[in-house]
């Protein structure tokens, strides 16, 4: 099993080898040698690493005799003889034959005794090739871990994937699955300003974006705007920080009390990818009433991404036909969604402790797909029995969810948001405002390809002190088939996965477990930042 540490080490070693190769490239090998004395030549020749080497006899008259590897000196050391070629001082060939030259006519001998061959370099190449192959094997074994997914949105155009502010329609893998998705954006937006969002395609996918709308909520200074799990907007009071949070492994309060991207997550159960776990939250100073809600900042791990890529690879070269089937048959299509496979994985179920009934009461669930952007949502709570503290239990799939913050919000009231369409859309490095018509016309789609960036400018209204912004994106995306995946074609397994998701999640558990740690590391380093080709073309 490849752990993060191993991946990191692999790259450190690779870089080290490159540096070593670079440093050694500036070295030299001095292996030429001249002999003015035949005795010394004969002495050294017994120690030549490559046997009897070629020998150049530079003659006093400027001629040269080049002996190949058969030369010898007679016992009296008066002649050197062997097969060779003799040239004059202008290096015109005089003869090429078995030659015998008087030692006295020779000014010096020249030969070489290689002290360095390519063994060291071949070793370095072997190591490098081995590392390359090893890494290739990792990607071939876990091809789903080497690729990313979903359109991403950024307020800071220079931010990396780790800091994506929103992530669009992760489940819309076909035109018929198109849907809209709202994500809360951090911070507040000044009225009258132009608010710029950077849209990126960082995966091997074609993104077809039908609509991008900014929902702006006028937010008084002492209030905060929230989005609920069912995409309604609320204004509420400041959060109650969780006084104690714990799971089966102990206290996790420090991980959940702040929005600091220090996320609480667990790894999957090696026997079943559907195994549940519980997180308990205590809010000791909170007054339960009819207008409270639980706020969570959360996102998914790579488990759903892995399962989806598995499904596509099982399709193999039937991917086109199966996608057509999915497009035309709603019943089969639903087997992918929350009524099917995604439903088997489940969301984050919220239960509130009811003191009078001495039992947990189910309140609803957080369930937004996507491993990249952190979602900030609230779940309005109805359970209330007037006590001074509130206890909440979250029930979730092991290894499926990352939770950054859990808090209570109070005095929740529904509010309306102002919908703002992008005024200008520019492609990074492309023509000014070349794409603005795409999102304003419902029949047009903004098509983006891997590595492309677009800037969306939204004109903010004047009538408020400041706005809280939420980004709505609607569309679908088409996953690019990888050559590696074709080898995984297994229609029977695809049927098994979709018809019996619970059994599939059980049997696939050990396979996923093998790659779970390495997958996270690889995924976060696999995002495409430069266009492969452009929709401008």
């Amino acid at each position, binding site marked *: 099993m490849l752990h993060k540490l191993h991946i990191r080490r692999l790259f450190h070693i690779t870089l080290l080898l490159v540096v070593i190769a670079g440093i050694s*490239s500036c070295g030299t*090998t001095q292996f030429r040698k001249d002999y003015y004395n035949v005795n010394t030549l004969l002495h050294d020749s017994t120690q030549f690493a490559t046997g009897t080497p070629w020998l150049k006899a530079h003659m006093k008259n400027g001629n040269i005799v080049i002996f190949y590897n058969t030369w010898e000196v007679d016992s009296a050391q008066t002649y050197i003889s062997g097969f060779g070629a003799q040239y004059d001082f202008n290096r015109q060939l005089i003869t090429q034959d078995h030659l015998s030259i008087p030692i006295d006519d020779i000014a010096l001998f020249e030969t070489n005794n290689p002290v360095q061959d390519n063994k060291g370099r071949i070793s370095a190449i072997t190591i490098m090739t081995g590392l390359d192959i090893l890494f290739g094997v990792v*990607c071939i074994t876990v091809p789903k871990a080497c690729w990313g997914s979903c359109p991403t949105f950024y307020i800071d155009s220079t931010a990396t994937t780790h800091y994506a502010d929103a992530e669009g329609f992760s489940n819309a893998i076909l035109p018929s699955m198109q849907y809209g998705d709202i994500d809360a954006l951090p911070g507040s937006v000044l009225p009258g300003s132009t608010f710029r969002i950077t849209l990126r395609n960082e995966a091997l996918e074609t993104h077809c974006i039908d609509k991008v709308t900014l929902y702006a909520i006028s937010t008084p200074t002492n209030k905060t705007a929230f989005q609920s799990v069912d995409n309604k907007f609320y204004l509420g009071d400041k959060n109650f920080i969780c006084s104690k949070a714990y799971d089966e492994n102990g206290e996790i309060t420090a991980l959940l009390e702040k929005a600091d991207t220090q996320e609480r997550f667990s790894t999957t159960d090696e026997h079943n990818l559907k195994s549940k776990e519980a997180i308990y939250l205590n809010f000791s100073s909170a007054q339960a009433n009819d207008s409270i809600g639980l706020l969570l900042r959360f996102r998914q791990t790579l488990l759903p991404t892995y399962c989806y890529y598995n499904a596509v690879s099982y399709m193999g070269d039937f991917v086109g036909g199966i996608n057509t089937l999915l497009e035309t048959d709603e019943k089969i299509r639903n087997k992918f969604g929350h009524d099917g496979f995604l439903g088997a994985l489940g969301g984050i179920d919220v239960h509130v402790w009811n003191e009078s009934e001495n039992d947990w009461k189910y309140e609803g669930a957080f369930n937004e797909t996507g491993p990249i952007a952190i979602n900030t949502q609230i779940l309005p709570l109805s359970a209330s029995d007037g006590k001074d503290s509130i206890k909440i239990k979250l029930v979730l799939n092991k290894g499926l969810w990352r939770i950054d913050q859990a808090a209570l919000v109070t005095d929740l009231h529904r509010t309306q948001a102002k919908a703002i369409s992008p005024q200008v859309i520019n492609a990074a490095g492309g023509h000014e405002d070349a794409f603005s018509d795409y999102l304003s016309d419902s029949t047009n789609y903004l098509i983006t390809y891997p590595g492309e960036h677009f800037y969306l400018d939204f004109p903010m209204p004047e009538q408020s002190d400041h706005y809280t912004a939420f980004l709505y994106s609607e569309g679908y995306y088409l996953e690019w088939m990888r050559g590696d995946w074709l080898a995984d074609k297994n229609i029977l397994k695809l049927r098994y996965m979709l018809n019996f998701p619970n059994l599939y999640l059980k049997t696939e558990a050990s396979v996923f477990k093998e790659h779970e740690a390495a997958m996270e590391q690889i995924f976060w380093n696999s995002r495409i930042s430069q266009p492969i080709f452009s929709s401008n073309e």
Partner: protein
Amino acid sequence: MLIASGCASYPKGINPVGKNKTDPYGATMKVSPKSTKTIIGELIAVNGDSLYLLGANNQIMRYHIKDIRTYVVYYGTPEKTLGWTYALLPAISISHGFWMILSIPINLIFAGGITNDVKQDMIYTNRELPIDKLSIMARFPQGLPPSVSLNEITR
């Protein structure tokens, strides 16, 4: 790339055969005198305080050693360039998925370092081969033969 290109390389238009194995000529040499432009030619001999190059048009040029700023000696081409690493390593990178964005440049830099290292075996600078040892690279390492006139030397 900086590492790979940081060392001396063959000058354009030069096929450096020189002193490699059974070649009877002197090494190809690039001399940068202190006051005149750089000259490329075959190293004929180093005699006392002078160095003789056979330049283009069979013209013998003599330089006083004290007037030479730098020089580079190219005395052959490597038998095995290991250039195949340029093809092999990036080809394997294709199996790395998105990681090829990183691994192809790394492999190219590595291949560049290796092939450049091989090439360096056949290249000496004045720092690596001091002037007092330079004669071994000459057509006449024993010095100019008394019986040979400079004007007669051609190639």
